[in-house]
């Protein structure tokens, strides 16, 4: 992939109103297949693999990109390709790829639909960092006439919480940014906690921006429901047992922000999660493994 492509991709990742990282990655992969000059499936697969690695390197935290790419690859190569002609094969792959892409576009809408009953009129919500899915869900709730209040943690390192608050303001939702360390203080005032996810692990736990684990533990201590909003392409075949099991390449960033030694993601074990709202439906953490088996079969 050309370097201009990489930089456009990086900008797209950063666009907060834009598409999910994994979807951007999938679009790029489709382009790779289209423009590929490979003559065999094996060659094509290698090209896709290298492209995936480049895409992963273009972003600081890569769990959703790698999971999305892997699921995409599985989806397009799922049934056997009986065509002997390689061009026919490629066409079929592209077709399937576009179908998959269309499905994923609709995933956020579907989640907004499913998650609507969880937010009632007068609910106070605590969220963490900036998640486009959560933003969409909250906007949907507000547009349907519900009055909600949202607290957002600053999530230092990149200050994405502040950006989230700006978007919420634009929609007209009453929102306030709080310090990461004030999460325990504010917990008694909120009705529920809602976070997005970078990746959903096989155990039912989630991998998300650093600070999510703390929120989850505090929510459990105060008996507040903890909901994770994630699209199904974020389901990843990882089974971490503790924080240490997260791959280092995804934990630590080499982007020069001067804070190289601090992890950017953490793992929240399934016992702190009440429910996962996904485009496959509302799942308990133990159902994630079931869905993963279905997705990967």
């Amino acid at each position, binding site marked *: 992939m050309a370097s201009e492509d990489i930089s456009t991709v990086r900008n797209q990742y950063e666009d907060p109103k834009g598409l999910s990282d994994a979807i951007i990655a999938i679009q790029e992969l489709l382009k790779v297949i289209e423009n590929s000059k490979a003559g065999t499936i094996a060659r094509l697969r290698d090209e896709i693999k290298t492209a995936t690695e480049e895409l992963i390197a273009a972003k600081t935290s890569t769990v959703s990109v790698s999971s999305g790419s892997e699921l995409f690859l599985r989806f397009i190569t799922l049934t056997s390709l009986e065509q002997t002609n390689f061009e026919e094969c490629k066409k079929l792959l592209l077709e399937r790829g576009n179908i998959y892409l269309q499905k994923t576009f609709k995933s956020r809408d579907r989640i907004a639909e499913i998650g609507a009953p969880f937010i009632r009129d007068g609910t106070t919500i605590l969220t963490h960092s900036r998640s486009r899915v959560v933003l969409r869900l909250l906007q949907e709730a507000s547009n349907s006439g519900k009055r909600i209040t949202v607290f957002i943690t600053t999530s230092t390192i990149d200050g994405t919480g502040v950006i989230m608050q700006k978007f919420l303001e634009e929609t007209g939702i009453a929102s306030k940014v709080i310090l990461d360390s004030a999460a325990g203080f504010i917990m008694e005032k909120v009705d529920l906690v809602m976070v997005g996810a970078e990746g959903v692990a096989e155990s039912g736990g989630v991998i998300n921006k650093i600070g999510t684990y703390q929120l989850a533990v505090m929510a459990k201590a105060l008996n507040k429901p903890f909901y994770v909003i994630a699209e199904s392409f974020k389901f990843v075949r990882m089974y971490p047992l*503790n924080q240490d099991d997260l791959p280092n390449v995804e934990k630590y960033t080499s982007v020069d922000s001067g804070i190289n030694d601090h992890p950017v993601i953490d793992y929240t074990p399934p016992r702190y999660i009440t429910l996962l709202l996904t485009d496959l439906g509302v799942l308990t953490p133990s159902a994630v493994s*079931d869905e993963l088996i279905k997705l990967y079969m």
Partner: protein
Amino acid sequence: MSDPSKKDQPSKDPHQGSQGSKDVTSSPQKPTSQSKQPHSKQVGGASGKGPPSQSTGTSSGISAKLSKEEKKKQKAERRSQKKVETGKTGQSGATPGGDSGQRKEGGREKGGVSEQMKSQAKVIRQIREKSLSQSEDGKKVQLFSHLHQYERTQSLTKSLGVTSDLPPVIVRLAIMYSSGVICGSNSRCLAMLGAFKKVILDYSTPPQKELSRDLQVTIKPYINFLTTSRPLSVSMGNAIKWLKLTITNVPLGTPENEAKEKLCTDIDEYIHEKIILADEAISAAVRRGIIKNGDVILIYAHSSIVTKCLIDAHEEGIQFKVIIVDSRPKMEGHHSLKKLVNAGIPCSYIFINAVSYIMKEVSKVIVGAHAVLANGYVMSRVGTSLIALVANSYNVPVLVCCETYKFSEKVQTDAFVTNELGDPNDLVPINRRHGNILSGWKDLTSLGVLNLTYDVTSSDLVAMVITEVGNIPCTSVPVVLRLTQMNN
């Protein structure tokens, strides 16, 4: 056939008669038969008979015991004479339930099998009657009175005459089970399948019979006999279910040699796929992601799959230490210790009472399983749930290695409903200092000795189950069961 039995034990009449006789229909009335039936229903895993009598069994079992006590006292003298005559044989009370349950099946099977069944049944009845005569000596703890207690005081084979048509390979297997020579879920299953292969090879279809029907019928009493030595493990039960299914599926009209060869190949394939390859896959998964450099792994007693994983990981070059936890009376940890030390792995050895002391040094706990139940609970050697509890309180993840053929459709939340009671006399020798302080336990009415074999660990204490189909959370066991059923 009923006459000779009555001659032998004329005193056995009302209570024993229902269990002993071929009078299949009389059992519902008899409380003693009900009290034993729960055990038989659970034990005959392969036969898959539901336990409708189970709930009634326990309550009536207690009252039945009382009345049985009285009547036994009356007949004790007469019986003691018989004891001297015939010598004590058979496992104490090993078969009462097993036989009455299986008997019904025998009784329902009509036609030519009855001869074979009759003689087999007679032998088993004799064993049971003799052993019943001293089952009163076997003191059972009240809470576990619905379970049968296996005591090794009697010889299995004394009652088997020259005319017994149990193949010697089966008798040998039963003796190896009861004496503990073969111990461990996988070894027992492998030994059993090996023995059945020999049985199949030696088998010849009687004239006018179909192999697919008759072979099943032939095998049933062998399974019953194996149960008298030790209850079937879940792995053995699943293997027997599969074997019966395979035998039934032998196409009609296949020439005998071909059918027998095909069955043997099928058994070999089953062993290869479900046990050997599965173990390889589990070991690979453990090497790949679970054991890391610098880990301190805690294991309990002996599990063939866990020791295999550790040895393979060590050979791959991963640096880790192992702490082996052991417990009385089986002391299976010695076996693990030998294997691991010979492989060159740095090991420590502690007793189970020191587990909470050592747990803060441990990074992971890896245990094997006897079975994983449909609700995600893990049934394993007694002591495992204790270790899981301590591990959880120190935030140490507990991992269970289990092949999928050990997954059971049963649901159990505690270790009381079904379990295996071992010989309480095994707990009597304590150590040199205290000598035989327990040796007079049978005479003390206020003292009971309980030797449990299995316990059940709750699914929220287990972080992950490592199987050949992948690493799954405990709660996903029914998913795997469902998928394997779909594939069948």
